[in-house]
C-alpha cells in the first residue's frame, strides 16, 4: 500500500547508503526545507482560494470563477501580481525592522511545522515536548506583528500592533489550557504519543465533556491568536484600515497574508492532532470490520481532512460574526474563557484520576 | 398660541420687531442687536422654542438677512425670526449656546456669506478650504474657473 512512511524510509536508507551520516542529515535538512517551503506556497494558494470560495458561497455569491476552471488559478494570478508590485518602504519608517517583520512572522509559521505529524510516521521532528514547543513558538508571532506596527511609523499600524499584542498574549493562556487538557488525558507532551493514545477513539469522543469544552475553547482561542474575525482587531478593516500591515505592499504584504493562512493551517493541524487523532483513522471500539475499512483510507487523507474541516469552521466564523471591541475581547478572555478553562482543567484532572474517560 | 398672542409676547421682548403674516408662518423681523436676548427668551421662556430646524442667510443684494426657523417639540408651533445685516460688515451674535445645532450651521453661513458670529466658540471654515477667497452664496460671487455659465 502506498504510504508516505515508506517513501521517507526508502529515502533515508538510500541516503545513508550513499553518504556518511552527517552528510545524509544535511541533505535531509535541505529536502525538508524545500518541502516545507513548497508546502507553504501550495497551502497559501489553496487556502486563499478556499477562503474566497467559502466566503462567496456563504454570501450568496459565486466567488472567483474567471481565471482557470472554477477560478482555480485566481490565487496564482494574485500572487503573480503581488510579486510584480513594488514593495514600498515608507520614508520615515524604521527600515530594518520594517523589512524584517514579515519574515519573522513567516519564520514562526515555519518553525511550527516541525512537530506536526502529517501522516503515519511522517513527521519532521518528533520532539518529546512537542506540545510545549508549539505553544511557546506560536507566541513568537506577536513579535513580528509588533515590529511591523511599530516600524511602519503609522498611527493605524501602531494601534493595530498594540491591540494584537494584548490579544495574543491573553489568548495564549486559554489556548494553552485547552491543550493541557489533552496533555493531562494522554499523560504525554509528545505528538506521536498523543496520536497513538487515540488508537481506539479520538479524544473528543473519549474525553467527552472536558474534551468538548476544551475543543470549543481551543477553537475560540486560536481564532483570536491568528487574528481572524471576529477577533481581527489587529487589522480591523473598518476601524484601522488594515492595522499593522497598512504600510506594506507587494511581496512583503503577501508574506503577512500567507503567514495568516499558514498560521490557520498550523493551529488547525494541531487541533486536529489533539482532539481528532491527527492521522489516526476513525476507530470505533470493537467494530473490527469497520476499523479495518477505515484503515484503508491513507493516513495523510485523514489528517488533511480533519485539518481542513477545522479550517472551514474558522472561516465559517469569520463570515458570520461581527468583530468584537478591544475591551470586550479582553473581557471575553479574562472573564469567560480563562475561568472556564481553569475549571475545565480541574474537571479533566479529576476525570483522569478517577479514570472516567473511555 | 395665536399669532396675535405671539406678537404681543415678542413686542414685550423686542419692541422694534416688525411682523409679516403673509407666509405660512409668522415672520418676525428684529434688529441684529436684540436677536440674541430674544432667542434666549424664546428658548427658555414660555414659548419653549427648543428646536431650531433651519438657520440660513439670504443675500438680497442690498442687505443680508439671517433667517431662523424655530419650532417647539411640545406645541409644534413654528415661527420665523429674521434679522437684517449690513452687507459690508455683517456681524451678529451667535445662538449656538442656545441650540447646539447652530454651531455647524453658523460655520456654514460664515463661510458662504461672510457673516461674522460673535462669541462663536469655533468660527472656522467648515466646508470650503481654509484659503478660499470670497463668499460663494452671495449674489455677486464670481468664480470664472469653477463656475460654468450655461
Amino acid at each position, binding site marked *: 500500500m502506498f504510504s508516505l512512511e515508506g517513501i521517507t524510509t526508502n529515502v533515508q536508507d538510500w541516503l545513508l547508503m550513499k553518504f556518511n551520516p552527517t552528510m545524509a542529515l544535511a541533505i535531509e535538512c535541505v529536502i525538508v526545507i524545500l518541502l516545507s517551503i513548497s508546502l507553504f506556497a501550495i497551502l497559501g494558494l489553496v487556502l486563499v482560494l478556499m477562503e474566497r470560495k467559502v466566503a462567496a458561497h456563504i454570501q*450568496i*455569491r459565486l466567488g472567483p470563477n474567471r481565471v482557470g476552471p472554477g477560478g482555480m488559478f485566481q490565487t496564482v494570478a494574485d500572487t503573480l501580481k503581488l510579486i510584480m508590485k513594488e514593495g514600498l518602504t515608507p520614508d520615515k519608517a524604521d527600515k530594518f525592522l520594517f523589512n524584517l517583520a514579515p519574515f519573522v512572522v513567516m519564520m514562526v509559521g515555519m518553525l511550527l511545522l516541525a512537530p506536526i505529524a502529517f501522516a503515519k510516521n511522517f513527521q519532521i521532528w518528533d520532539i518529546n515536548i512537542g506540545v510545549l514547543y508549539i505553544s511557546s513558538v506560536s507566541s513568537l508571532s506577536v513579535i513580528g506583528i509588533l515590529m511591523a506596527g511599530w516600524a511602519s511609523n503609522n498611527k493605524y499600524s501602531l494601534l493595530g500592533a498594540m491591540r494584537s499584542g494584548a490579544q495574543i498574549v491573553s489568548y495564549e493562556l486559554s489556548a494553552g489550557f485547552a491543550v493541557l487538557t489533552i496533555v493531562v488525558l494522554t499523560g504525554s507532551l509528545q505528538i506521536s504519543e498523543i496520536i497513538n493514545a487515540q488508537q481506539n477513539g479520538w479524544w473528543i469522543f473519549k474525553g467527552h465533556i472536558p474534551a468538548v469544552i476544551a475543543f470549543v475553547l481551543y477553537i475560540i482561542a486560536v481564532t483570536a491568536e491568528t487574528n481572524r474575525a471576529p477577533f481581527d482587531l489587529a487589522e480591523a478593516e473598518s476601524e484601522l484600515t488594515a492595522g499593522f500591515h497598512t504600510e506594506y505592499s507587494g511581496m512583503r504584504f503577501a508574506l503577512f497574508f500567507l503567514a495568516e493562512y499558514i498560521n490557520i493551517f498550523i493551529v488547525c493541524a494541531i487541533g486536529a492532532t489533539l482532539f481528532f487523532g491527527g492521522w489516526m483513522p476513525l476507530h470505533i471500539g470493537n467494530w473490527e470490520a469497520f476499523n479495518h475499512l477505515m484503515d484503508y483510507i491513507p493516513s495523510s487523507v485523514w489528517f488533511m481532512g480533519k485539518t481542513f474541516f477545522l479550517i472551514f469552521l474558522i472561516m*465559517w*466564523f469569520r*463570515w*458570520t460574526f461581527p468583530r468584537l471591541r478591544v475591551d470586550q475581547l479582553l473581557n471575553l478572555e479574562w472573564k469567560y474563557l480563562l475561568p472556564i478553562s481553569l475549571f475545565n482543567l480541574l474537571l479533566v484532572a479529576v476525570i483522569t484520576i478517577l479514570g472516567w474517560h473511555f | 398660541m395665536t399669532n396675535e398672542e405671539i406678537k404681543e409676547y415678542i413686542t414685550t421682548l423686542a419692541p422694534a420687531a416688525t411682523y409679516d403674516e403673509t407666509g405660512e408662518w409668522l415672520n418676525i423681523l428684529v434688529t441684529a442687536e436684540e436677536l440674541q436676548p430674544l432667542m434666549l427668551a424664546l428658548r427658555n421662556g414660555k414659548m419653549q422654542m427648543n428646536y431650531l430646524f433651519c438657520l440660513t442667510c439670504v443675500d438680497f443684494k442690498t442687505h443680508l438677512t439671517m433667517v431662523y426657523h424655530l419650532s417647539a417639540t411640545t406645541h409644534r408651533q413654528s415661527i420665523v425670526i429674521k434679522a437684517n445685516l449690513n452687507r459690508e460688515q455683517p456681524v451678529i451674535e451667535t445662538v449656538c449656546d442656545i441650540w447646539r445645532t447652530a454651531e455647524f450651521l453658523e460655520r456654514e453661513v460664515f463661510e458662504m456669506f461672510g457673516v461674522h458670529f460673535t462669541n462663536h466658540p469655533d468660527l472656522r471654515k467648515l466646508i470650503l478650504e481654509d484659503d478660499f477667497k470670497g463668499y460663494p452664496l452671495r449674489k455677486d460671487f464670481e468664480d470664472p474657473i469653477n463656475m460654468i455659465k450655461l
Partner: protein
Amino acid sequence: MFLKEYITDVVTGVTSLLKGMRKTGYYFTHPKEIITEQYPDNRATLLMSDRFKGEVVMPHDANNEHTCTGCTACELACPNGTIKVVTKFETSPEGKKKKAIDALVYRLELCTMCNLCIVACPSDAIKMAPNFEHSVFDRTKLTKVLNQPGSKIREGIE
C-alpha cells in the same frame, strides 16, 4: 445568583452565535440561492427595463426620417446644457423657407438622464434608450450628433 447569570449569559450568547452560523451554513449548502449576475457572460440574456434611462437617442424610420422640428424645447428644458440644437433653413420644392435641424448635438458626458428633454419634446422626436455600456477610449466620442446623416423630417410634422 451570580453563577446562574453567568451560565445563562454564556448559554444565550453561544445560542445566538450558533443561530447565525446555522443561517450562513444554510446558504453555504444551498448554491441555488446564489444571486450573482454573470455580466458580461449573460449579455445575451440580460433584460433591461424598457424604461431604463441610458442615453438620449433619436429614432429614425426606414426612410431615414425623424420627427424633430428643431424647436429647441429640449435644449431649454435641459438643466446641464447637454443638448444643442443647430438649425438651418431649408427651401422646400415650392420655394418656401422652412426651419429644420442641421444637427442635434448631444453630449453624453454632461447628461444626468433626468428625462426632462423627453418630456418637453412636443413631437416625440427623441427618447431614452436602455443602453448602458457607454465606455469609450476617447472623451470626444461622447459628443454625439443624434440625427443620422442625410436624414430629414417626416412629412406632416410641424
